[in-house]
């Protein structure tokens, strides 16, 4: 260092003196605790207002027999107080439980298929090959397509005179005119296909990032020890991917249970109730039958069920939050 150059001390008039040590006063803005609170306060307030408030309103209404058609503001619902008869009704309502079961069926089948497909496709994209970037981008497009539009596209796709039947006709060499969406079983298949189509890319992305993130040296170490590809897959990749797989399944499961847009645009829950998921069921109760307090009770029941499920599902998610990736 150049010993000839010395830095002059900062003159008092050049700079606001920081040397004067300030003590903390009541509600000092610079206190870290105050800072922390003010960072999270807006979020907490909004959460309370837009989540807690409606939630309470929902509990409140679900305990009455109020609906908009009976007149009066929702705040006046206490005039129709009926001590939770709605909940008894929900428990007796077969359609409710059927819709719930159907939702889990769709979610279960779709998510399993998405996982297997996603993992398989991820292996295809693991190494570099010419044109990979283009194929990769094309692979991602479905998950970015607005679900409502996707619902419409698949509605087109499964029409009796749509492209799917045309392709099948070409393959079997004679006209094939199945009205997919008018048949109980095929409508369900159509809904699941649409769901798988939209969300396999996400599963593919997650699995690919998991595979890419696998520690290279551990794979090399296994190679050096003479392990074959299947041995590496069985003993190293699967166990190491486990946390990521769990997270992917949990998150996709969570989202799949909420399915509404696509089904609504493809089948509106039909034919009859064949593809009626829990969201569509509630939509129908609230807006076609206009039974709001009953819908609120159903919503509360679902909330409780979902919360319990979610709490179990979220547990693996909580712990590996920091370890994964």
């Amino acid at each position, binding site marked *: 260092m150049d010993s000839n150059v010395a830095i002059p001390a900062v003159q008092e008039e050049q700079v606001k003196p920081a040397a004067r040590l300030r003590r903390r006063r009541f509600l000092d803005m610079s206190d870290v605790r105050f800072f922390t609170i003010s960072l999270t306060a807006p979020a907490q307030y909004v959460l309370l207002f837009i989540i807690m408030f409606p939630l309470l309103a929902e509990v409140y209404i679900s305990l009455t027999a109020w609906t908009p058609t009976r007149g009066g503001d929702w705040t006046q619902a206490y005039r129709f107080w009926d001590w939770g008869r709605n909940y008894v009704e929900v428990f007796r309502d077969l359609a409710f439980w059927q819709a719930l079961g159907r939702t889990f069926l769709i979610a279960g089948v779709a998510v399993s298929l998405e996982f297997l497909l996603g993992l398989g496709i991820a292996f295809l994209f693991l190494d570099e090959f010419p044109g990979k970037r283009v194929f990769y981008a094309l692979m991602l497009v479905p998950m970015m397509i607005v679900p409502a539009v996707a619902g419409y596209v698949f509605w087109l796709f499964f029409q009796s005179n749509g492209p799917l039947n045309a392709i099948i006709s070409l393959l079997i060499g004679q006209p094939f005119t199945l009205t997919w969406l008018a048949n109980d079983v095929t409508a369900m298949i159509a809904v699941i296909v649409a769901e798988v189509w939209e969300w396999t890319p996400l599963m593919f992305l997650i699995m690919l990032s998991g595979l890419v993130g696998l520690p290279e040296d551990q794979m090399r170490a296994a190679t050096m020890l003479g*392990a074959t590809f299947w041995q590496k897959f069985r003993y190293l990749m699967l166990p190491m991917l486990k946390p990521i797989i769990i997270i992917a399944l949990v998150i996709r499961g969570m989202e799949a249970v909420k399915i509404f847009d696509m089904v609504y645009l493809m089948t509106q829950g039909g034919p009859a109730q064949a593809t009626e998921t829990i969201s569509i069921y509630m939509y129908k109760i609230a807006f076609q039958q206009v039974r709001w307090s009953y819908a609120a009770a159903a919503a509360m029941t679902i909330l409780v069920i979902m919360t319990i499920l979610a709490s179990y599902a979220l547990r693996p998610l909580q712990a590996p939050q920091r370890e994964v990736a």
Partner: protein
Amino acid sequence: MASVRLENLRKEFGSVVAVKELNLHFPDKKFAAILGPSGCGKTTTMNMIAGLETPTRGSIYFDDRRMNDVPPGKRDVGFVFQNYAIFTHMTVAENIGFGLKIRGVDEATIRREVGQIAELLELTDMLNVNAGRLSVNDMQKVALGRSMIVKPRIFLLDEPFSNLDAAFRAYMRGELKRIQREIGQTMIYVTHDQVEAMSMADNIAVMDFGVLQQFGTPDEIYNQPVNLFVANFIGSPNMNFIPCYFRSEDGKGYLVQKRGNARILLDDRRRQLLEQHPGNQDLIWGARPEHLTLHSEPSRSEYLRATVRFLEPLGPKTVVHLELGDQDTIKVIAHPSYREKAGTVQWIEINPKYLHVFDAKTGFAIR
């Protein structure tokens, strides 16, 4: 057990040449080290021996068999990675036994072999511990054990100690050397730490910019460095280098300092050598700090006059930084109780036996 021979080995990554025409022969059952700063191509060389990288040109021989086209799993090479590459989802025992498990060895044999290895490495107490929970120090041992259990012909270690704390590193240096002697395998050890290479290896290959600089025993590397790079890289504190030129007066040869007037009298052999050297006006002489002695009186005429600038007391010794001539700094190792003030004039004695002379242009040592 095998010797490793590299012939004209070259590796390019795109336009970058990582290793240039490398010729090396690591003898059987010896401990060899590849030493160099980061990015010198030492790890690439290691990966090529292991088969993790394919050489652009040249051949690799184990004993007399060409190994270029043998896949890594079949080369019978043990590899210890810098970050250990421990399988964190397995226990220590499962880690060590992995190599046997994938070879289809039965459980009982695996357990016995794992037990033996664990004994050797003092891991017996933690065989059932999850490997992800181990300390870095223990991970390192597990990585060693995992490679050892399949009894490879050659052991490759890629900076295995770089993440360890200093005390454990010093301990493991001795341990690894002991283990190598015990199992008698060929070991090739990559490191950027000259202390590790010097203390453990039988042979050291010093590399820089993908080029082999010198290959020899630690003693040769330390006392007869072939060029400035090797001389500077080995030794801590590093060698002193003073730019100088050759002058011959009354039949005597001198090295005269460029930024100052310190003169060193040369013996006849050196004088003749330098007289014939075409670049003898542009030289650098070098001497290791421990080969210099400080005197307070110029009792002999060939002592060099220098002024103390500051001291670095290190406990067992003190490094004295002195100013020689106008701008050259020279370090001398002195007794721990040495406490002269800055500005004191001291006289430096140079042991001619340990004087190195380099050509400043080419960097090569003139011997």
